[in-house]
C-alpha cells in the first residue's frame, strides 16, 4: 500500500462524492413534477374540498407558497400587479400546506386579491417553493418554475395560460 497515493485518492474520492451529492440534491431541489389539480387535494380555507370543476375551463396561474417563505411573500406584489394589468379571466390560486388560520392571519394583514387555498400535504416531489404553474383552459400545465418569478415571467405564465 502506497500511503501517499491512497490519501491522495481518498481526497479525490471525497471531492467526487461531494460533487455527486451536491448534484443529486440540486436536481431534487429544483424538481417540479407535473401534478394535476386532483392530485393536489385542494381545500378552501374552511377545509372544504374544492371541486375540480371549479377550475376547468379557466386559465389558472397556481403558486405554491407559504407565509414563512420569504421569496414567496416577496413575489406576491408582482403577481398582484400583473393580475391587475393583464390577468382578466385568469384564476390566481395560491396554495399552501400550512394551517388555514396562518393563511387567514396573513391575509388580514395583506389582503391580496387571489384565491387562497390549502393542500393537506406538501406537494409530492416539489422540494422548494415558491413553485409556480400555469394551466391552460384544458387543465394542462403549459409553464412551470421553481423559485422566485420575475415580473416578466409572471406575464409569460399568464399569456401561456390564456392561450
Amino acid at each position, binding site marked *: 500500500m502506497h500511503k501517499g*497515493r491512497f490519501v491522495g*485518492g481518498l481526497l*479525490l474520492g*471525497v471531492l*467526487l*462524492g461531494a460533487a455527486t451529492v451536491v448534484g443529486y440534491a440540486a436536481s431534487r431541489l429544483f424538481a417540479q413534477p407535473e401534478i394535476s389539480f386532483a392530485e393536489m387535494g385542494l381545500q378552501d380555507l374552511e377545509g372544504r374540498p374544492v371541486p375540480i370543476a371549479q377550475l376547468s375551463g379557466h386559465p389558472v396561474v397556481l403558486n405554491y407558497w407559504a407565509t414563512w417563505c420569504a421569496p414567496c411573500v416577496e413575489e406576491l406584489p408582482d403577481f398582484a400587479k400583473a393580475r391587475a394589468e393583464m390577468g382578466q379571466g385568469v384564476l390566481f390560486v395560491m396554495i399552501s400546506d400550512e394551517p388555514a388560520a396562518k393563511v387567514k392571519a396573513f391575509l388580514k394583514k395583506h389582503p391580496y386579491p387571489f384565491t387562497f387555498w390549502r393542500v393537506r400535504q406538501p406537494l409530492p416531489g416539489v422540494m422548494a417553493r415558491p413553485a409556480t404553474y400555469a394551466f391552460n383552459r384544458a387543465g394542462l400545465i403549459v409553464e412551470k418554475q421553481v423559485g422566485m418569478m420575475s415580473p416578466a415571467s409572471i406575464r409569460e405564465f399568464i399569456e401561456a395560460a390564456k392561450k
Partner: protein
Amino acid sequence: MTKRQSLLAGIAAGFLLTLLAAVVLFYFFLKPQLA
C-alpha cells in the same frame, strides 16, 4: 499493491465514505427537520 491500485482504492474509499456521510447526515439531521 501498486501505486495505481492504492490511488484507486483511495478514490473508492473516499467516494463511498462521502456518500455514506451524506446519507447519515440526511436521515439523522435533515429529514427530522423537513418532516
